């Protein structure tokens, strides 16, 4: 542990994560999820959940309004496309900055309260943003229909450079299909790296300390408000980044991505995967998006084909029963999964992984307390 840059465990985790993300097109194949659009969404919502975890998992503030920053990021990115250029970089920068400023204002006010009162304040701000975006702010947001690109957009930078073309690019490289996926995957890996650094930094420890005991923090000489605000803004910027990425892979920004249910979704992702862990929220995001996109698409035709090997009568029964849980019944399965996970694995999926891991290694090593007690020198 003498490298100051990164510890060995962190390095292994980071490398493992990187490989898993880059190899998605391979290992998602058998799950039917290995197509660019869904993998992009995995990356995007992974970032959203990673950022949310910095606030909720580390600092202990449960925000119910993070979708607002996600939405603001999307709108900012689309406006950057419309006004400046189709290049992704200005869109990302613009979105992150705007989302950060928005988070600064909302966080400054909301962090005056804690606990459920904080949650309701953030919820209120997000719902106000949503309602206004849907109606009164239509000139900026294009309301119900969502902000879209049109041929008449000025795109001043592109005009000046003589660039044409109507879809997002990265330095001239178009971002559809797999190019888009690797672009998102790259950003997810960077976002993960930053989250990992934050978690392992003195600043990250302060956030955990705030979650653990805020009173002690005060009597230890810390002004906790700026710490929590910094965490809030960082997670807001993560959300803005994710929102911008969604707008880059699919240039449209709709108001419903700011609704409270969208905020609730990221809460569920984080808890499902494992609050406070690094990998957990990302896993949670993947699972929920998988359900939403794949599980919901199993219709009776597919089920009949799947169970075609069964005798006819049995097949019908099996298909009838299964169809209650997939296709239009996918919400039911999702609800049951939430209940089961939280009852049997309170720490989310990551706790399940940890338990499996401990169970597998228990017989082998008895004195497993040793590795971390080794002096650092």
């Amino acid at each position, binding site marked *: 542990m003498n490298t100051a840059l990164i510890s060995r465990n962190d390095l292994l985790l980071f490398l493992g994560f990187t490989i898993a993300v880059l190899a998605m097109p391979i290992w998602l194949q058998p799950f039917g999820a290995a197509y660019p659009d869904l993998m992009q969404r995995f990356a995007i919502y992974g970032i959203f959940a990673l950022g949310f975890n910095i606030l*909720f998992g580390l600092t202990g503030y*449960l925000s119910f309004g993070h979708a607002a920053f996600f939405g603001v990021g999307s709108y900012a990115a689309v406006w950057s496309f419309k006004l400046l250029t189709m290049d992704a970089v200005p869109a990302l920068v613009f979105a992150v900055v705007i989302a950060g400023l928005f988070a600064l204002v909302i966080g400054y*006010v909301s962090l*005056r*309260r*804690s*606990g*459920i*009162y904080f949650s*309701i*304040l953030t*919820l*209120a*701000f997000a*719902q*106000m943003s949503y*309602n*206004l975006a*849907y*109606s*009164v*702010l239509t000139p900026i947001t294009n309301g119900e229909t969502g902000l879209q690109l049109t041929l008449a957009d000025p795109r001043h930078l592109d005009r000046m450079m003589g660039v044409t073309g109507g879809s997002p690019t990265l330095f001239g490289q178009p971002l559809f299909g797999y190019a888009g996926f690797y672009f998102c995957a790259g950003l997810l890996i960077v976002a993960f790296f930053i989250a990992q650094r934050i978690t392992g930094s003195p600043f990250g420890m302060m956030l955990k300390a705030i979650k653990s005991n805020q009173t002690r923090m005060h009597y230890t000489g810390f002004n906790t408000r700026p710490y929590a605000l910094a965490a809030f803004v960082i997670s807001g910027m993560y959300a803005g980044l994710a929102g911008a990425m969604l707008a880059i892979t699919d240039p449209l920004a709709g108001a419903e991505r700011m609704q*409270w*249910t969208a905020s*609730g979704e990221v*809460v*569920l992702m984080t*808890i*499902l995967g494992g*609050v406070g862990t690094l990998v957990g929220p990302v896993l949670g995001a993947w699972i929920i998006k998988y359900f939403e996109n794949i599980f919901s698409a199993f219709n009776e035709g597919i089920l009949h084909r799947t169970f075609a090997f069964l005798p006819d009568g049995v097949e019908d029964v099996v298909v009838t029963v299964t169809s*209650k849980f997939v296709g239009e*019944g996918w*919400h*039911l399965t*999702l*609800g*049951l*999964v*939430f*209940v089961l*996970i*939280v*009852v049997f694995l*309170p720490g989310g999926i990551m706790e399940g992984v940890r338990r499996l891991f401990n169970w597998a290694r228990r017989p082998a090593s008895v004195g497993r307390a040793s590795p971390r007690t080794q002096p650092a020198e």
Partner: protein
Amino acid sequence: MFEVILLQFVNGLDKGGAYALIALGLTLVFGTLGVVNFAHGALFMLGAFCAVTFQKLITLETVTVDPTQLSPWGTPVEVREPLVQAWLGDFGAVLVNYSVPFSLLLAIPVMLIVGIVMERGLIKHFYKRPHAEQILVTFGLAIVLQEIVKAIFGANPIPQPVPADLRGAADIGAMIGLTPGIITYPIWRLVYFLFSAVVIAAVFAFLRFTTFGMVVRAGMADRETVGLLGINIDRRFTIMFGLAAVVAGMAGVMYTPLLPPNYHLGMDFLVLSFVVVVVGGMGSLPGAVAAGFLLGILQSFASMTQVKALVPGIDQIIIYLVAVVVLLVRPRGLMGRRGVMEA
């Protein structure tokens, strides 16, 4: 202008009463058990569907198929005879007419059982768990409940009738000596308002003046000590949860004529209930009532054209704006106690 404002005020009171009643069960569970119940909306929805079920039961019909005639879509025409009227005669007709209030008789036991089963089976394991986990499990439960309802009743709203004698509007202006026809208000909304007042008062009296209520309130303050006195507080908490479910369910039953229920109804009222409870102060019964009225009246006035002309979109956000202002000015809501739900 006077009558417009007066009418809007009446409307605000009406909305406020409804909000307070809808949020009542949530604040009970918050206050006594310390559980953040995201399934509260689902309980409200289940109550509404008790009314739907009751109405379906009493309007059961004998169906005789007449194969000689075909409907335009090709199925044989069905001749239907209502059963209840056939059995019960005039009383059957009264039953059908008053199906919504009568379905309270179904809703109360059903919701009590639902509440008790929920608490015993799931919620009680979560008293000491973090709020985040309570949210996840109750949210999961809410989804499961609403999907079950969707599987049984479909997704389209199912209208419930207002009893014939209570249809239309009452001229309350004329009652207090104003020009007739100016201040009129739907009778059923007035009924709902009275119903809210009665239920809230009853719950309040129950907690304040009965031994049971005293024990529960003591249990809220210090669960262990009450346990040491040999009082089985767990059982009482179960009953409290059942009571909260009944209150939510009754609120749902009586609301059905105003809002034809569909399976999604619960989620639509969930956020509103939380805002009412938090603005009122977590776990405070009088707070929830005060917050209900405050939000109802302000929402009503914010929806007036004159106000909207001054502040565009104010009616879209007024509820949340009030929540923000109240929480910033009064940290624990209107009547919240210190230290509740702040961790």
